[in-house]
């Protein structure tokens, strides 16, 4: 009995000694590691200064501050923007996922609240004939309409984006030129950002397992093109440009109109500016 106890004590002592040695080794590695980290930091600061323009050689993101305008008084609800966006950005071809979408607000005579529908409404899907084509049906043609208008919606690329705040992996972030981007390689699909966005601008793509949203066609604007929806809009209801340039369409739009943003009370400071909407639009 006693001998057994001694044997177990001996075993414990050997084990602890091993741990001790391991700890010493670890200490040495820490020292080496610290050296490595400092080296790496040095390397990083080197690379960013040697890069010149970032993210591409023709585009420097520190020189731009993008802004987006929506003139709801011009929108005709043709949904060409939605169609263009779907193709451009590989958005799932169904009636439930949109980077940008259009809402219709209709006030009938004697009704205080607006009737709201979008291209995802079943009646509108029936009018278009398929979930991959988009059109508004003419359901109010015989109704007594007091006021009606269309409102295009998209990601507001907020100045203080709550979606970025909640992302646990750094997969979404605000670029230096103001666009909120998603790194699909780092997105783990937790959908916390989908919940955080007060505008419903984000959705989860089941096929890729990541979150998706409008990013003002970052691949186009960095090449000097307009976002696909702006390009497609036949009536100029969507305005895009660089706010650093006082003569850009968006700067003129903001200067010459009384613009408003959606849900200003959230403090997100959106960067999509609206003209021609009323208090029902959130």
């Amino acid at each position, binding site marked *: 009995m006693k001998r057994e106890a001694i044997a177990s004590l001996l075993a414990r002592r050997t084990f602890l000694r091993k741990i001790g040695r391991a700890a010493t080794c670890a200490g040495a590695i820490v020292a080496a590691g610290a050296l490595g980290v400092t080296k790496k930091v040095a390397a990083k600061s080197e690379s960013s200064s040697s890069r010149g323009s970032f993210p591409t050689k023709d*585009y420097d993101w520190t020189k731009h501050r993008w802004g987006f305008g929506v003139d709801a008084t011009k929108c005709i*609800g043709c949904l060409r923007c939605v169609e263009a966006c779907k193709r451009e950005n590989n958005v799932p071809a169904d009636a439930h996922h949109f980077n940008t979408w259009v809402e219709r607000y209709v006030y009938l005579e004697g009704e205080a609240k607006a009737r709201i529908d979008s291209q995802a409404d079943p009646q509108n899907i029936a009018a278009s004939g398929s979930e991959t084509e988009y059109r508004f049906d003419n359901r109010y043609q015989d109704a007594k309409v007091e006021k009606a208008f269309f409102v295009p919606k998209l990601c507001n690329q907020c100045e203080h984006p709550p979606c970025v705040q909640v992302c646990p992996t750094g997969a979404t972030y605000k670029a230096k030129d103001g666009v909120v981007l998603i790194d699909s390689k780092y997105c783990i699909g937790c959908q916390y950002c989908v919940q955080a966005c007060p505008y419903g601008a984000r959705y989860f793509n089941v096929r890729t397992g990541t979150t998706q949203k409008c990013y003002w066609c970052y691949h186009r604007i960095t090449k000097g093109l307009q976002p696909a929806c702006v390009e497609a809009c036949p009536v100029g209801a969507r305005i895009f440009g660089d706010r650093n340039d006082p003569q850009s369409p968006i700067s003129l739009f903001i200067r010459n109109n009384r613009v408003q943003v959606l849900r200003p009370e959230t403090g997100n400071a959106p960067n999509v500016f609206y003209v021609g909407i009323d208090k029902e639009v959130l």
Partner: protein
Amino acid sequence: MPKHIVRLIILLVASGAIALIAKWFFTVESFYEYGHYRANSVPEIAAQEAVYKTARYCQSCHSERHAQWSASNHKSVTCETCHGAAQGHPEKGKLPIPADTVKLCTLCHEAMPGRPGTQPQIQVAQHSGGQQCKVCHNPHAPKIAAAAVKVTGDVAAGRQRAAACASCHGAEGISPNDTWPNLAGQSAAYLARILAAYKSGDQKDVVMTPLAQPLSDGDIRNLAAYYASLSCRTVPSTTRIGNAATGRALAKNCASCHGDTGIASNPAWPHLAGQKAGYLVNVLKAFRGGLRKDPMMAAVVRGLSDADIDNLAAYYAEQSCQPVTESRKTP
């Protein structure tokens, strides 16, 4: 310090170190470069290829169509809005030409509450009687420009001036042969427009151009008024071409401008009823070949075969132009 506490501290430091090393090992190079994200993901996103190529891309090959479109009031509707994204074109094949233009055009032009008043809108059921929009409207230049201009001229002065035209177009505006058009009873607005086009060089013809150039604007008005005042006659054609019955079916596509039997609804467009078949064939072929330029006619004749043209000409040549000449006589 007791030995076991020292060991515990060493243990904690070691695990902390392992965690740090693991983080250093697993964090990619560009993370933290600009913030709590992977900086390399920005060029990755920026490198995606654009799917919509813009009208400038289309212009490099379709320059003629581009010129027409960019001068029209449809210039805000880009090529790819109707024809789809140009990525992969032309390497991977053609882009679609929309077949159902009613469906396409009404996306923007169907009258609907909520659309601003500045947007041209139509009551779909009453506008075209189910015809395709492109029958009358050229999608690349949709506005029907030839709005009727009221032409008032001096018929007597026109009669004097017309003496020079009689050798080809006949003393009473009924041409003696099959190649030259009848002018009697033709709408004055159309005649004036065409003469002005010959004069300005917008339309060219070996015979007509030198004859029209010396005409003053007043001469053109007088001539137009004179020929419009004459009464037309359907003269049986000497050459027999085409099949009028087949032509009748084809002519449905022309009816919204030129009328069911070739009596145009709008004085800006020519009457075709009783016109010379040979002349109609030549004109349609000239439109098809681009020798005569008119955006709308170019669009509608593009798909016509030689046989179609013969049949259409035969149909219009044998229609009676008489019934409406009475109402047409008023200048």
